[in-house]
């Protein structure tokens, strides 16, 4: 399995999803088999939200066989674990490759061994040694620590251009197999266990005995890139007809036992209107759909709904370009924060499938700080704040800047992305009430990134999203001066905050870490470089003939091998 980078521009997901469909709507990411592994589990017990659907616990009596049919609007582009950047490819690869040495327990959200039987941290808190399970490739050959090492070495070669190479390059000192079953990994600096685990688990092993014969990069010289024949995961690719369908059949050599469901078929359809119809008619069991179709699907008697509060969140925000006035005035930013109706945005734009967020961590995170300033929507407060900060209204009802000129903010967002468009329009409307003109500039993804990051940074506001893991330390990069303008596109600089992040990464006491991260939230919310908007809640529809795992805060996709299909239903 492929590690998600701790942070990623969530929009990347959106844009790729949108690529294939003409009726663009942010679509729930197709379920990935493995959980997202990022950081230490919260001490609190998992809170599973009430679900509508009866949960059929997989039992020994679970029937084997059958076909799970999934409709999606986006096809994978590559099956090379070290080339893909999009989520559709990630989905396919996740079916086929497993590499996670450890995982979060779906119930407790604590790290537990997965492919590794056990791990041992050396005294220096820098080196960790994993002992592997008895593992086999799908062709029956043993999967060893040397496969890991070999894969790591290949991936780290600069000429192989692994898109996410920079992070391990910075951290990993050694990565070597001591024997078939033992893998030793060392990092530069001592870290607490959750951070350490997070930093070292990055390789999805590839079958060295097959891949060694081939070129790493070139799909024409390496048939495995587009059509893997030897895998470690639950499923083998049987057939892939691009933009039409992909069929997977189960791998009986999967280390946790051969899955119940015999085949998985992805059908690629151009838009969610059609895929929804397929879901409703029972032609598929699971489907991409737009938030707006939620009610329709919920009303269907063919479908079960699963809902959960996700442990890791993806949240969107409005960023202030802090390089210029009036954004560089914190009072001004606070005023704007008051003018954003998060609740309405969550309810109306996202059909209540998102929830308001006020901080860099969602309420589901173990470090969540409920006491950060929330800047609840209140136009009058916003006006008062502006007045107090010296932004006066002129005779025409326009708000004047400190330079005496009417304020005019330029808002960039990506297109096509209807929810961003709508958010922008709400923004325009609400700031209009304050007497501030907002000019909306929708830009195609590449142009958008260019405009946001490159000189002369001619913009005031942008709408973007981040996807955040369970481990809180992973998100620090977006707040650091070093990552201007790439990740820290708003150019937010706060030295004290950076010190706090450093401390968080070096503190070994989880309770103390929590305090540090809560303080970080306090600082950031106080500085308000972003207006935090909403985070996505977890939900999924499945045809009733499909029985999944119990819902946890990791959703239903974990332990997919236990899913089964009730025949004739």
């Amino acid at each position, binding site marked *: 399995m492929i590690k998600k980078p701790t942070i990623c521009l969530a929009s990347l997901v959106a844009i790729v999803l949108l690529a294939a469909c003409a009726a663009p709507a942010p679509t729930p990411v197709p379920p990935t088999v493995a959980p997202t592994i990022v950081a230490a589990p919260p001490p609190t017990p998992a809170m599973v939200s009430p679900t509508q659907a009866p949960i059929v616990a997989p039992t020994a009596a679970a029937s084997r066989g059958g076909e799970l049919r999934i409709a999606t609007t986006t096809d994978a582009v590559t099956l090379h674990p070290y080339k893909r950047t999009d989520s559709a490819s990630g989905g396919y690869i996740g079916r086929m490759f497993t590499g996670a040495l450890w995982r979060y327990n779906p119930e407790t959200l604590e790290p537990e061994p997965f492919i590794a039987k056990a791990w041992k941290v050396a005294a220096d808190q820098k080196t960790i040694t994993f002992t592997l399970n008895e593992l086999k490739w799908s062709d029956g050959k043993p999967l060893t620590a040397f496969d890991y090492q070999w894969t790591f070495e290949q991936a780290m070669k600069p000429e192989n251009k692994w898109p996410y190479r920079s992070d391990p390059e910075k951290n990993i000192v050694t990565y070597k197999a001591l024997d078939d079953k033992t893998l030793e990994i060392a990092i530069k600096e001592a870290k607490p266990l959750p951070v350490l685990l997070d930093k070292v688990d990055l390789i999805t092993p590839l079958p060295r005995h097959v891949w060694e014969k081939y070129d790493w990069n070139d799909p024409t010289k390496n048939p495995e890139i587009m059509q893997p024949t030897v895998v470690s995961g639950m499923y083998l690719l049987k057939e892939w007809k691009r933009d039409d369908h992909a069929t997977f059949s189960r791998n009986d050599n999967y280390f946790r036992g051969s899955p119940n469901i015999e085949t998985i078929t992805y059908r690629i359809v151009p838009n969610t*209107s059609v895929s929804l119809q397929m879901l409703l008619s029972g032609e598929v069991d699971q489907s991409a759909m737009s938030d707006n*179709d939620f009610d329709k699907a919920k009303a269907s008697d063919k479908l079960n709904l699963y809902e959960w509060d996700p442990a890791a969140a993806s949240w969107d925000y409005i960023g202030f370009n802090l390089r210029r006035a009036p954004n560089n005035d914190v009072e001004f930013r606070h005023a704007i924060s008051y003018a954003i109706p998060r609740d309405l945005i969550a309810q109306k734009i996202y059909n209540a499938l998102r929830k308001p967020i006020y901080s860099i961590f969602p309420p589901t995170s173990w470090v969540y700080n409920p006491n950060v300033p929330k800047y609840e929507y209140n136009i009058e407060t916003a006006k008062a704040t502006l007045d107090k900060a010296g932004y006066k209204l002129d005779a025409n009802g326009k708000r004047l800047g400190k330079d005496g000129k009417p304020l005019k903010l330029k808002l960039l967002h990506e297109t096509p992305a209807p929810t961003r468009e709508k958010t922008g329009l709400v923004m325009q409307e609400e700031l209009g009430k304050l007497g501030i003109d907002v000019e909306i500039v929708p830009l195609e993804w590449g*142009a958008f990134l260019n405009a946001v990051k490159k000189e002369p940074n001619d913009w005031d506001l942008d709408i973007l999203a981040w996807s955040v893991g369970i481990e809180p330390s992973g998100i620090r990069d977006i707040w650091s001066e070093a990552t201007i303008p790439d990740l820290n596109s708003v150019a937010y600089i706060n030295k004290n905050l950076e010190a706090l992040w450093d401390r968080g990464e070096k503190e070994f006491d989880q309770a103390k870490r929590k305090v540090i991260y809560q303080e970080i939230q306090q600082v950031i919310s106080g500085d308000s470089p972003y207006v935090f908007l909403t985070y996505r809640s977890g939900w999924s529809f499945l045809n009733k003939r499909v029985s999944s795992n119990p819902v946890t805060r990791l959703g239903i996709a974990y332990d997919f091998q236990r899913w089964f299909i009730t025949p004739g239903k």
Partner: protein
Amino acid sequence: MTASPFAAPRKISEGFYRESFKRFRRDRVSMIASIIFLFICLLSISAPLFTEFVLRTSPNKQDLLRDYEPPSPQHWGGTDGLGRDALARVIHAGQVSLGIGFAVAGLQLTIGVILGLIAGFYHGHVDDAINAIILTRGGIPTLYFLILLSVTFRGFVGTPWGLAIIFGLLGWTGVTRQVRGLVLSVKQRDFVDAARVTGARDARIMFRHILPNVMYIILIIAGFDIIGAMLGEAGLSYLGLGIQAPTASWGNMLSGSLDDFQKAPWLVFLPGIFISITVLCIFLITDGLRDAFDPRLKE
């Protein structure tokens, strides 16, 4: 003439155009279509007034609490996901859609007619050169070319003006081809030689003697240009390459509302109906024009 001592009682003269328009006016279907089309145009032009004084709303006024409301006395066309009045928006979008239609037709006709006149009139190398351009253009499938352009000049393609200019630049060859063919045949007519022997220069012959003969065809082409531009914009929007929000056009309203199919079908049908009726009207008008102007029907 009035100041002239020869001011004679002017007889009502019946030129070709006058006669043809008379025929056109007798055609009931065309007249109804013209009236509806004119009405839609007027509605679009006066969109700000209409929405303010008749619908008593504005196209961008949001009311998130009243989103996806079905048509009601308050919102004749219902509301969209931001609680905006759908009818007001469709009428405003009409400005963009019709504007694109007219701009494209204008651009295509200006380029197409001038080059068609020149190609047909001068023949020879100018004609060859223009033909080569037409051939090149004809060899590139339009949508792929548009995709190529939208990959490279996304921001430009997504604006109404950009789209109009690109449609115009891509579409004139058809006009040129038709005009050229007509000019070639009109040029053979004796009055062209006659005009030359009266001393008329090329430009005068082209614009005063030949052009009126092909004018009615141009009128018909204009109709099809408008239709093509409007449907083309809708198609591009469907692919996600059309006019970018927040600018609303019928095309992107139509394709944008596909997401709301289940929730708010009126949002799908409203722009759909506006596009269809407008296109149908233009279609019927051009049909009527063709009948009215067809010289064979004059007997």
